[in-house]
């Protein structure tokens, strides 16, 4: 019974909420989303590897960043981790869209849109954090410049 109510909330078992044209457009978008998600993995992991190898090269040249991992390294690991999480949700969105294209089951489309919502929520929250840090940096920089001027 619970399952039936669940399907009702989704709008039925088979897809009838969207038109055939809308479904066709959605499923044809999936390969591009998948490609972007895979590129997200490649760029984030590639960036981390490049950063680690550059750090090692500097260390071998005698530059000392102190004991343990440098702040730059920690920052790139965090950025890479976030990029992997967002890319995973993007990939899940694409995979569920492809699955929906084959099955035409409403639940697959619901799962796809859920992953899309999580992806955009994470991106939006990260954007707010970035804007807050940027604003604080600008205010801090302005205050520091004023203090140095006097």
């Amino acid at each position: 019974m619970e399952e039936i109510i669940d399907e009702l909330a989704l709008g039925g078992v088979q897809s009838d909420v969207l038109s055939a044209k809308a479904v066709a457009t959605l499923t044809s978008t999936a390969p591009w989303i998948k490609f972007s998600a895979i590129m997200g993995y490649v760029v984030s992991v590639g960036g981390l590897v490049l950063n680690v190898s550059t750090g090692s090269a500097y260390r071998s040249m005698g530059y000392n960043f102190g004991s343990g991992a440098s702040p730059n390294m920690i920052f790139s690991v965090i950025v890479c981790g976030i990029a992997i999480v967002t890319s995973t949700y993007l990939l899940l969105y694409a995979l569920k869209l492809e699955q929906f294209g084959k099955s035409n089951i409403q639940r697959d489309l619901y799962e796809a849109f859920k992953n899309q919502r999580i992806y955009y929520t994470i991106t939006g929250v990260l954007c707010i954090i970035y804007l807050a840090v940027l604003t604080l940096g600008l205010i801090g920089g302005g205050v520091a410049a004023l203090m140095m001027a006097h």
Partner: protein
Amino acid sequence: METTDSSLNPISAPAAETPLLLVELRQSARWMKFLSIVGFIFVGLAALGGLLMLAISRFGFIFTIVFFLFGLLGYFPVMFLFQYARGVQNHQQTGDMDELENAFHKQKAFWKYIGVIMIIYLVVILIGILTYIAKAQ
């Protein structure tokens, strides 16, 4: 005697007011709109930065072109994302399926654009690496 209870049949039963998948889509639309508005602000700042460079720098013209190019590159995906979000929200208000179809077309344009930019980026990186290797030998 045979009794039929339509509530037990998910296909013939009346659907809930708003299917959950549309609820998810509309929640995404709010974030998409926010992200696209932030994107528009950054595109505007890039254009403004370009004009500023023209005024203050000796080589301002080159920087202006670079800033404008980045602004132009950023404008299209931001516009597509905004149109996608607006289409979903218009469908929410009017229930017009054409709005949703157009919105999905804009989403396709958005991801296609991002994909093509990434391919160009990869090609440029590859050319750079190959040039470096060729010069090193």
